[in-house]
Every structure is written in C-alpha cells, then in structure tokens.
C-alpha cells in the first residue's frame, strides 16, 4: 500500500530533439511546449512526450525568461510561455502567465508598452463597430488584422504552432481594450488593461537593458500608421480642421476693419498710355489694411490693357503702387475656336497704413498680336478706347491667405486618406 496521490514537484522533461531539460509548470493543462533551447515543438499532453516539429533554432530572445515568477494585480504568476506575433505592420510579444489557483493571464508587450490580458467568460455583444460589455460601450479601434504567430517558446494549453493565423479586432473604452480573436469559427475575447512598464520590470525582475523601449516616433509608427492600423480619428480631424478654418475666417472679417469703396469707369486709349487718371478716394480705417483694386473690362477682344495703380496718401504724398492687366484673346485654329485671358483683374495691395488715399491709374490698351502703329486695322480705329471699371476697396479679406490655410489644414487628413486608399 502506497500513500495515495502524493503531489510531486512540477515535472521536468527532456527535449527529444536537443536533450535540454524543460520544466513543466502547468502539468495536466499544457498541451504543447516549445523547447526554449532548440525551438522544437513538443506534445506533452500525454506521459510520453512526442516531437511534433523539429527545429534547431537559436534560443528565442524575450524580455522575460520562462519560469520567472512575479506578482501583478495582487496574484503570483509564473511566465510559462512566450510568443512573438505580427500583423501586416507591427510585431509584438505575448507572455502566458500561470497560477494553478487562478488560471491563465496574458502579458502583451508592444513597443515598450504593456497590457495585462484576461480571457472573458461573459462575452460582449454588438457588431463590428461597437460592442457592449458589462453595461459599457466599447468602440472599434482599427480594421480587422490578421495576426500570425512567429516564435513559440514554453508551455501552452492549446495546440500552437509557428504560422498560426487569427483574425483580430479590438474595441476600446478609455485605456481598456477588448480584443476579439477568431480562428475559423472559434471566437475568444480578451480584456486588456495597461500596466506600467516599471511595474512589469520590477515584478519579473527584468534586466533594464532587456526591457523593450518605446521607439522614437517615426512617420510609419506615429502619425502615419498603415491603412487599417490607425485609430479612426479622421472624422474628428476633419472637424478640427473645418472649425479652425471657419473660426479663422470669422476673426479675419473682424480684423479686416471698416470697408470703404470707390469706383469709376476709365477709358484706356489704344497705342498710348493715359497717365494719372483719378479713380477716386478711399479711407483706410485701421493701422494696416488691405486695398483690393478690381479692374473689369467689357466686351473687347484681342486686346490687353496695362493698368499701373498708384494709391497716394493725401497727407504725405507717398504712394503704394501695383499693377493690373485685363486681357482677352480669341481665334480659330486646327482645334477649333479658342479664347483665353481674363477681362477682370484683381490687384491686392497689402500693408496700407491708416489714412485717406487717392487712387490714380495709368492705363494703356494694346492689340494682339501686334500693335498697329499707324493706320486703321480691320475693326479698329485709333479713336477707340477701352472702358475699364476700376473699383478700389479698403478692408477686404485676403482670400489667398485663407485658402492657403485651408490647403495646409487638409494636407494631414489628405495624406491619411491617400494612404488608406493606396493600401486598401
């Protein structure tokens, strides 16, 4: 008669490939074991150890050694397994923690950040966009990824192999993440909560030099994550951009100051320049204002009009000058009728100081393709003058500045959209 079932110390076994001594911490639960020395995959679910796949790999490098014990969330854990996994853009490590009285937990490390994972027994409900779990709503983080298992070392309670694939989708609420993994029809949910790296390091006595570090933010891991992996903040980003543009425009209207306008029709003579035609007077009501001068010609063709503006300060006699050109050409070639040019010209004068100004213009009309120095040409008489309506306006908005702002604001979301489009 022998004493019934005296518990023995955790089993050890010898790797059938390399002969290395391997501890078996979770005897009775462990199904597969990846040899920590040679990487061979063993079936240890029966008393007789079976070699599933033979490898002669270098020893896997993980931050935490197998067999290491540590205390996290008020319980003692043994690190019994470690795997490396990757998807199309990232790779990370997962450690299997075990306590015979508590069960299994996960420790996930991605770029120096750690999460503690617990398998869920009460499953979240919802669709692919959001789920509800224990009365709280979790929203999807990024699109579904396929995670592939790489290096496998240590004990696992299921049949695991290098190359295993699982579809992963994660939902977040604050810092808590619910991760859904599907392998064929089987779905498992894991709750992941963040753990401070320092806590993990002291719990498992990790050598500081082996501790994974946070990478410096690079375009591919920070702002521009590959398609599908980025958090879905494109909507909020567009909203922020739009709000910034609209707010800026409102303040710009306020800054632009009082509007004053003067307008008259001048006659631009052909073949010569008429100088110093007075258009009118405007008042610049702030320390600095924009003055926009708009020239509009009417029905003319194959002509251009040079306009040299002088905005003269009545008090000092000093001038701010600018140039405008109204033009229109048309004709017929092998491609048919064509026309080009603009009978309207906007000239923006910036940094105009406070004061009352007279606007003078030097105007001269020219014909295309050549000026006719003398003699009448068809449809043209020397007496002809081209009427141009000139309007000066103080207090206008610099639309170009605003549109530049708009373009810059939409470059970042644009790049993200382009990136998604290119990768989808």
């Amino acid at each position: 008669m022998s004493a019934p079932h005296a518990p023995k110390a955790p089993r050890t076994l010898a790797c059938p490939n390399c002969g290395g001594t391997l501890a078996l911490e979770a005897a009775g639960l462990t199904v597969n074991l990846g040899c920590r020395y040679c990487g061979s995959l063993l079936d240890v679910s029966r008393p007789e150890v079976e070699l599933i796949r033979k490898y002669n790999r270098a020893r896997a490098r993980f931050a935490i050694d197998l067999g290491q014990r540590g205390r996290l969330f008020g319980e003692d854990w043994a690190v019994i397994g470690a795997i490396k996994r990757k998807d199309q853009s990232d790779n990370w490590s997962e450690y299997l923690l075990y306590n015979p009285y508590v069960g299994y937990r996960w420790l996930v490390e991605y770029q120096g950040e750690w999460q503690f994972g617990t398998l869920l027994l009460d499953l979240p409900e919802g669709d692919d966009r959001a789920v509800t779990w224990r009365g709280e709503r979790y929203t999807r983080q990024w699109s579904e990824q396929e995670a592939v298992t790489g290096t496998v070392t240590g004990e696992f309670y299921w049949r695991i192999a290098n190359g295993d694939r699982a579809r992963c989708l994660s939902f977040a609420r604050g810092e808590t993440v619910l991760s859904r993994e599907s392998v064929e029809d089987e779905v498992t949910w894991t709750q992941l909560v963040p753990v401070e790296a320092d806590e993990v390091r002291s719990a498992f006595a990790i050598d500081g030099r082996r501790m994974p570090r946070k990478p410096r933010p690079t375009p591919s891991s920070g702002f521009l994550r590959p398609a599908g992996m980025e958090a879905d903040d494109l909507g909020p980003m567009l909203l922020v951009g739009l709000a910034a543009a609209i707010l800026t425009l409102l303040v710009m209207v306020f800054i632009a100051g009082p509007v004053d306008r003067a307008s008259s029709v001048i006659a631009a003579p052909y073949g010569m320049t008429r100088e110093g035609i007075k258009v009118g007077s405007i008042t610049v009501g702030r320390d600095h204002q924009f003055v926009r001068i708009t020239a509009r010609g009417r029905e003319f063709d194959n002509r251009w009009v040079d306009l040299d503006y002088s905005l003269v300060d009545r008090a000092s006699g000093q001038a701010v000058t600018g140039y405008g050109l109204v033009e229109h050409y048309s004709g017929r070639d092998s491609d048919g009728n064509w026309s080009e040019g603009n009978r309207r010209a906007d000239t923006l004068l910036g940094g105009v100081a406070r004061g009352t100004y007279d606007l003078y213009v030097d105007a001269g009309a020219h014909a295309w393709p050549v000026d006719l120095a003398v003699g009448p040409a068809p449809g043209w008489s020397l007496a002809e003058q081209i009427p141009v309506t000139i309007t000066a306006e103080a207090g206008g908005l610099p639309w170009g500045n605003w549109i530049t702002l708009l373009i810059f604001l939409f470059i970042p979301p644009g790049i993200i959209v382009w990136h998604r489009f290119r990768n989808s």
Partner: protein
Amino acid sequence: MTARLVLYTIFAALLAGLTLLSSFYAWSPYSDEDHHPHGAVYVRPMHK
C-alpha cells in the same frame, strides 16, 4: 483622443494663428504692392 489628433489640433491652431497674424498686419504672399520709400513722392502727371 489619439496622440496624432492632439498633434493635428496643435498644428491647426498654429496655422490659424499665423493666418490671423498676417491678417492683422495686412500682409499676404499674394499681394503685389510696392511701397515706395520715404521721399519717393508720387508726382501727379500733367494733363495735356
């Protein structure tokens, strides 16, 4: 709020600030004025 949304918000605020500053001083890269220095006084041409 993601880190990059925070970054983007800072970026948008900076851009808006720059735009407003240029608006305040009535400066624009698209304006084509020529400010004549002191002494260069506009002389009104004589009309015949």
